[in-house]
């Protein structure tokens, strides 16, 4: 019977690779664009030239060289703005997701490992807090601390930590019962070091998987907020604000709306596929 199990995973592994490499490829490109934005962007994203407004993309006639994806109603190059937009999208997703992860995972670990009073308080907090959607919280947060990236990041972190806490708490509980933890504890290790050295490495894979999903959500929330111009000051290009501006020019400059839309879609899709892929690989249940 042994050889039955060997055959199946090899086939599945190849398919999984595809679902892993494509997103990594796209996210890599976005990351490079974000990091080297000033070098990579063909034009200055803010420079306006009303003489060159609403140029079609290169593959259509009437286009100008150097403006690959055309220009918007103020003559700004769409491609350069998307590249700089990537910078903000990645910045928000990295910072927000990491903050959420640290905050949530820490609480999750503590609740899972120490249990008792800690667990009850944190779980109760998770239940209540779980219910508040980040978009709405961000909109209301803006009323309090004003527009700007801080409110976007704060909103995501203050809401979505529950997702991490819940998963990590469950995983920690499972790990904590494993005998290797007891043996470490018997060996006189203090509780905290046991937590860090023993449990964390095992819980790390699913933290990373969740981190990916969280980044996708952060990008979406930022796009929504800048669409309703509650995100950063509305002159620096973000995908959301480009989509909002493009919307009014949909009938005669559709590319202003379409290309950032595709960039946003592919980025979020990559994050979620990567997250799902990793989750499946590390999730004990689906093994």
């Amino acid at each position: 019977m042994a050889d039955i199990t060997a055959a199946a995973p090899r086939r599945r592994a190849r398919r999984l690779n595809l679902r892993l490499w494509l997103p990594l490829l796209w996210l890599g490109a976005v990351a490079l664009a974000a990091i080297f934005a000033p070098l990579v962007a063909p034009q200055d994203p803010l420079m306006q030239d009303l003489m060159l407004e609403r140029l079609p993309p290169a593959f259509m006639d009437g286009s100008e060289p150097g403006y690959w994806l055309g220009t918007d109603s103020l003559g700004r190059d769409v491609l350069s703005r998307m590249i700089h937009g990537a910078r903000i999208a990645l910045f928000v997703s990295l910072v927000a997701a990491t903050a959420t992860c640290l905050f949530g995972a820490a609480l999750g670990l503590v609740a899972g490992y120490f249990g008792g009073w800690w667990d009850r308080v944190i779980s109760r907090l998770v239940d209540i807090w779980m219910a508040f959607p980040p978009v709405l919280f961000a909109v209301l947060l803006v009323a309090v601390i004003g527009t700007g990236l801080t409110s976007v990041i704060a909103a995501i972190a203050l809401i979505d930590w529950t997702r991490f806490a819940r998963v990590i708490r469950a995983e920690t509980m499972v790990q904590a019962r494993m005998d290797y933890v007891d043996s470490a504890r018997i060996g006189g290790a203090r509780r905290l070091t046991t937590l860090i050295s023993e449990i964390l490495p095992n819980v790390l894979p699913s933290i990373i998987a969740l981190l990916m999903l969280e980044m996708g959500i952060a990008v979406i929330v930022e796009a929504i907020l800048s669409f309703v111009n509650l995100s950063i000051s509305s002159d620096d290009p973000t995908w959301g604000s480009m989509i909002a501006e493009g919307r009014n020019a949909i009938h005669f400059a559709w590319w202003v709306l379409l290309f950032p839309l595709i960039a946003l879609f592919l980025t979020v899709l990559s994050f979620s596929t990567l997250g799902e892929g990793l989750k499946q690989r590390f999730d004990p249940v689906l093994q």
Partner: protein
Amino acid sequence: MLQGDFGTSITLRRPVDELVLSRLPATLELSVMALAIAVALGVAIAVIGARRRGTATEVGLDLTSGAVLSVPDFLWGLVFVLLFGVLWPVLSISGRIDPQIDVDFTSNFYTFEGIVRGRFDVVQSTLSHMLMPALALALPLAAMIAQLLKQNLKEVLLQDYTTLARVRGFSETSVILREALRNALLPTLTLVGVQFTFLIGGTVIVERIFSYEGLGNMAIDAVINRDLPLIQGIVLLFAALFIVINLLVDLSYTLLNPRLRHG
């Protein structure tokens, strides 16, 4: 504020509690319709995915729901306005009901009260106005339900009682619908509960695009106009709403799960 006096809105010059409660029914109706669409769509896709498991259809459905998941609800709103509003103008684009219709209802629940009073012109108008925003809200949730429910279905379909049902002559589809679905729905229910509150959060933006006068739309105006008393009222109402929804989900979980119900 503690004695229930929420003050008056600066911009709209009317008591906040009256304003907020008058707008709540619109958002609730929209969210309930979106939830209904999401569940119907999600379950249908999951059942088809399970029925055709292992075939290209299943892979196709997986890819589409993955793609649908990564498009935020407000972008769906934009797409629908173009599709059904302009190119093929069949649905109403803005507002909640056709102003021509005389609606002197006691509550603001136009659709529900319309059904109760048999006023089908009202119901038809509100549904026609709500369909696009509701669909925009429902698609991401439907994709989530489809993915999770199909996963649960496939696991349940390995159980002995489904095999027994096949021996007894039931077709694969009726095995899925009659035996597997209810067992797979339970774990999916908790996801729906949490996501439903996220869906209501989504109304903030979708109502804005469709100029649908619900709570979300008013929240954005309140925020942009720094109308603090109104914002306060909205936050409290949303918070109360989410706690109630969580309660309902927990309640329905015990109700639907025979093991818990019968102790």
